């Protein structure tokens, strides 16, 4: 903790002056998806840098941290009973939805962020999803279902009160990346708000990528699908032959 404070102090000195600004650190800005990847905690910490003390009459500052995985299109389907069995009957196409999204705040989001600012910066989970759907009438229930399912599997996280903010200056939060992670750039944004309005923003990224054999296999399957398929078959044939030979030797 003391070392962390020291790092922040150095950062504070190095930056140019402004009214109230965010200075940020990340416990890691690279996440490697290795064969043994099983989720990871990312520590996001920072400080508010000020020219002078906070304005005497001013309301307290609040901090919102968002981490967003790569945006991907997807389809939300709804099953209905038809001819006695349950089948997917209707669907809503979602143009862009983050594969992972976490919002951590100092206090309940509705108290520290106005709707207008949420709309402008796309901070809350529903705002982070962009959907156009004209296939069905009640598409809101599909977006709700998307959020519900992703929240249950830990891909969407609402961590109200998850940010510790000491002395209106030092803040830190911990975001848990789940085991099922999509490769890509995880945009990390920090918002400083006062009375619902955004005072300052800061943006950085955590890069999540497959490494080693995982990366090699994935790339091969996408770039050279024929070679990949042949490789899969050769491995299967070799394994089949090896098994047969090994057990024959055992019996013999």
């Amino acid at each position, binding site marked *: 903790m003391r070392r962390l404070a020291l790092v922040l102090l150095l950062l504070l000195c190095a930056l140019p002056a402004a009214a109230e600004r965010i200075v940020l650190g990340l416990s890691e800005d690279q996440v490697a998806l290795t064969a043994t990847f099983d*989720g990871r905690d990312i520590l996001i910490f920072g400080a508010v840098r000020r020219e002078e003390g906070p304005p005497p009459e001013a309301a307290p500052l609040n901090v919102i941290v968002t981490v967003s995985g790569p945006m991907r299109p997807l*389809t*939300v389907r709804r099953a209905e009973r038809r001819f006695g069995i349950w*089948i*997917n009957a209707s669907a809503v196409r979602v143009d862009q939805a983050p594969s992972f999204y976490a919002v951590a705040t100092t206090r309940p989001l509705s108290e520290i962020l106005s709707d207008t600012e949420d709309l402008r910066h796309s901070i809350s989970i529903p705002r982070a999803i962009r959907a156009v759907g004209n296939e069905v009438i009640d598409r809101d229930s599909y977006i709700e279902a998307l959020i519900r399912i992703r929240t249950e599997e830990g891909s969407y996280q609402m961590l109200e009160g998850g940010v510790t903010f000491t002395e209106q200056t030092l803040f830190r939060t911990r975001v848990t990346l789940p085991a099922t992670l999509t490769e890509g750039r995880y945009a990390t944004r920090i918002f400083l708000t006062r009375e619902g309005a955004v005072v300052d923003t800061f943006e950085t990224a955590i890069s999540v990528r497959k490494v080693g054999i995982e990366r090699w296999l994935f790339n091969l399957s996408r770039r050279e699908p024929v070679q*990949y398929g042949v490789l899969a078959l050769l491995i299967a044939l070799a394994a089949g032959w090896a098994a047969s030979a090994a057990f024959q030797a055992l019996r013999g």
Partner: protein
Amino acid sequence: MQLYLPIAEVSVNAILLLGLGGLVGLLSGMFGVGGGFLITPLLFLVGIPPAVAVATSANQIVASSFSAVLAHLRRRTVDIPMGLVLLAGGLVGSALGIGIFNALRARGQVDLLVTLSYVVFLGSVGSLMLWEALRTTLRERAGAPPQRRRHFWVHALPLKMRFRVSGLYISVIPPVVVGVAVGILSAIMGVGGGFILVPAMIYLLGMPTRVVVGTSTFQIIFVTAFSTLLHAITNGTVDILLALLLIVGGVIGAQAGARLGTRLRPERLRLLLALLVLAVCAQLALSLLLPPADPYSLDTGR
């Protein structure tokens, strides 16, 4: 021990997958079936995306059936010409099956297709096997001699060909049709199709039981290999790492199963297999009939 699968993009317990492979291998060793019809639904349960489960099972079956066919070749229980005729149909069927699979995947109905196919085929094959096993057991108790094979209508078709190992002189049309049907199933359900092929060869083509398993395994290698390749090329859904775990578990299980299998009487084995097939079928049928826990589902195109 958690393992991150590069294509499925999920982290699963490696020991669990080895165990799954082992369990299915045990059953396949005991009953002489590929076990694809069990492994695919089990992979769904573990959380592998359906498309990856189907494609990877096909890959795993290549390994287990290749291993099995080597043993059959040593014992000369493979009718290669018959296998090739079945295969000609099988490759056509596999290509057709991939087409159907991809068309339905785009409409979000692939889960339904796969589950329905399982319910229909497991249900009918399971009931047939159960009936057959019970009848044999009853007849043996009564002391009656086993029934002789009769002449089939299929023997009247044109394009006759001689199959020496099977001791048959029949039209190539029925084996080709059987091959096409099994090819379609292989692509859609991620199975080898042994559980359809074996009864069809015995009851429809009238092949001697001695060469049935070897010949069906022979043709399954090629059909599943072709399905694997097509899935890899058109969908990129074959997960080599997942396949490898299943193969290792399956190989060990199969050898243990083969030992266990020799201690049980054949009718008893068939009865057990029939009950197992019907149990899987009932489980899948329930998933279609009962309301799902959440009527909504997400489709990310995998």
